[in-house]
C-alpha cells in the first residue's frame, strides 16, 4: 500500500512550511521583481498560523490540508492567500473522512484545485501565475492515476512538472490579463506563486 496516510500528509505539510520558511527572502525578492514584494511575508504569516493549528494526530487524510486552507483563507493579505486557501481546500475536501490519499484522490484534488484558482483568479496557463505550476502538476497526477502509478512516485512526477512550469514563467512576458503590467522587468526570474507550488510538490518527498 503506497497511499499517503494522515501522518504522511502531516509530514509533507510540515516539510512544506519549513521549506517556504527557508526560502522566504528569495520568494520576496521574486515578488519584488514582478509585484509588490510582499509574497514571502504573506506566505510565512499564513503558514505560521497553519503550523500552530496542525494536529499532531490528524483525524483523516485531509486534516493537515484543512489547517493549511483555513490559515490561508483567514490571512489573505494578498492575492495569493485566498487562492492558495481555495487550492488547499480542494486537497482537504478530497481527503476529508478518508484514511489515505491514493494517486486518484490526489489527481482529483489537484484538478479541482487548479479549477478553483482559475475560476477565481481568471488566469490561464501562460499568464505568469501560480497556475503555470498548478496546471502541469494536475496533468501529471491525472496521467499517473490513469497509469496506476503509486502516490509517492506520482507526486515526484507532479513536482517535476510543477518545477518545469514554474521555470517556464521566467521567460513569460505576459501580454494579457493581470500580469501585463510587469513587462520585461521580470524576465529571467520565475513567478513566486508558481515557485511556491513547485516547492509544495517537492516537499512531498521526505527522503
Amino acid at each position, binding site marked *: 500500500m503506497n497511499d499517503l496516510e494522515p501522518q504522511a500528509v502531516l509530514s509533507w505539510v510540515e516539510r512544506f512550511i519549513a521549506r517556504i520558511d527557508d526560502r522566504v527572502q528569495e520568494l520576496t525578492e521574486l515578488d519584488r521583481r514582478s509585484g509588490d514584494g510582499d509574497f514571502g511575508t504573506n506566505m510565512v504569516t499564513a503558514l505560521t498560523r497553519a503550523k500552530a493549528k496542525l494536529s499532531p494526530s490528524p483525524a483523516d487524510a485531509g486534516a493537515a490540508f484543512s489547517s493549511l486552507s483555513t490559515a490561508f483563507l*483567514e490571512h489573505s493579505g494578498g492575492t495569493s492567500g*485566498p487562492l492558495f486557501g481555495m487550492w488547499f481546500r480542494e486537497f482537504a475536501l478530497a481527503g476529508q473522512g478518508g484514511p489515505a490519499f491514493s494517486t486518484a484522490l490526489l489527481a482529483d484534488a489537484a484538478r479541482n484545485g487548479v479549477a478553483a484558482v482559475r475560476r477565481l483568479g481568471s488566469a490561464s496557463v501562460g499568464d505568469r501565475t501560480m497556475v503555470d505550476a498548478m496546471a502541469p502538476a494536475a496533468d501529471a497526477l491525472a496521467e499517473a492515476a490513469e497509469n496506476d502509478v503509486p502516490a509517492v512516485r506520482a507526486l515526484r512526477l507532479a513536482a517535476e512538472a510543477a518545477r518545469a512550469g514554474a521555470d517556464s514563467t521566467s521567460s513569460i512576458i505576459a501580454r494579457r*490579463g*493581470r500580469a501585463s503590467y510587469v513587462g520585461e522587468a521580470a524576465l529571467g526570474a520565475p513567478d513566486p506563486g508558481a515557485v511556491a507550488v513547485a516547492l509544495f510538490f517537492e516537499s512531498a518527498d521526505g527522503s
Partner: protein
Amino acid sequence: MAAHQLVNDPQELVGEALEGLELSQRGRLRWNRDPSFVIRADDRRPYKVGVLSGGGSGHEPLHTGFVGYGMLDAAVPGAVFASPTAIQIQAATEAVDDGRGVVHVVKNYTGDVLNFTIAAEISGDIRIETVLVDDDLATDTSVEGGPGRRGTAAVVAVEKICGAAAERGADLSTVATLGRRVAGNARTMSLALRACTHPGQSVPSFDLEAGQVEFGVGIHGERGVRQIPVAPADELVAALTEPVADDLGLSRGDAVFVIVNGLGSTHQLELLAAYRQVTRLLDARGVTVARQLVGSYVTALDMAGCSVTLIRADEELVGLWDDPVRTAALTW
C-alpha cells in the same frame, strides 16, 4: 512616530477604532472580535434578507458606519486599504442569514471580489447574491480582461437601497436586483488636492506638485489618471460632474441622486459649495436632483479632495431612499 496622526501601533488602529465604535454605539452594534465583523445588535426583524458589505478600512464611515436599521446588517472590515478575508466574510454571512439569503455588496477591487467570491463558495447552503459596485468612471477603460471600473462612493446608495428593500421584506433576488439597478446607473469621478498619509507613515502616498490637482483618483491613495492645474472650485467640480453626466447620458427631465463626497480632510464648507455647483450644472441640463448626500462618507484616510457621484433615480428608488435609516453615520 508619524506626523499629524493620532495613532498607537498602526497595526492596532483598526481594532482600536472598532472597539471605540462598539463602545460609542452603546448596544446598537456589536463588534465580533474573531473573525472580525460589525453586526447589528438592535432588535433586527427576523426573516429578512441579510445585507452585508465590507472592504478595506480607512474609508470610514464606510462600511461600519452604515450598519443598522434600514441599511447593513453587518460590515466586514479589513486592514487599512486591504480586503477582509474570506473567513471573516463567511462568518458575517452566517451571522446575518435567517434563511432568506444574504446580499453581498462588493466594491470592485480584485482582493474584495476574490474574498467575497470565496466566502460565497465556502458558505455552503446560504443563498448569496452579489451586487458589484463599479461606479468609478476614471477607470472605465476597455482593456480586455482588465479589472474594470473601481467601486467608490456609489456604494453608499447601493447599501441604502438594498437595506431599505430588505427591511421592507423584499426577497433575495429583489433586493439584489435593486442594488444592481443602483450600481448600474451610478458613475463617479474624484480628484485629490493632497494625498493621504497611511497610519504610521510620515509622508503622503504620492507627491502633488504645487498647483496641481490629481484627477481621477480612487480611494486608496493611488495616483489618478492625470494631473490638471489647480483651478477655481467651480471649474474643478464641473470637470468631475460633466463627464459623469455625459456617461450616464443624462438629459432634460431625468432625475438623479447626487453624492458629493469628501475624501477625508476637505471641509464641509467646500463640499457644500461644491454641491451648489453640481446643482447648477444639472440645472443647466434640465436634470433634477431627486435626493442628495453632501459629506465625507467614503474617505481615503486624510486625503484632501472630493468625488461627485450621479445615479439615475426613479420613483421606486426614491421611495426606498426615503425609508427610515438608523446607523452611526446616516440617520433619517
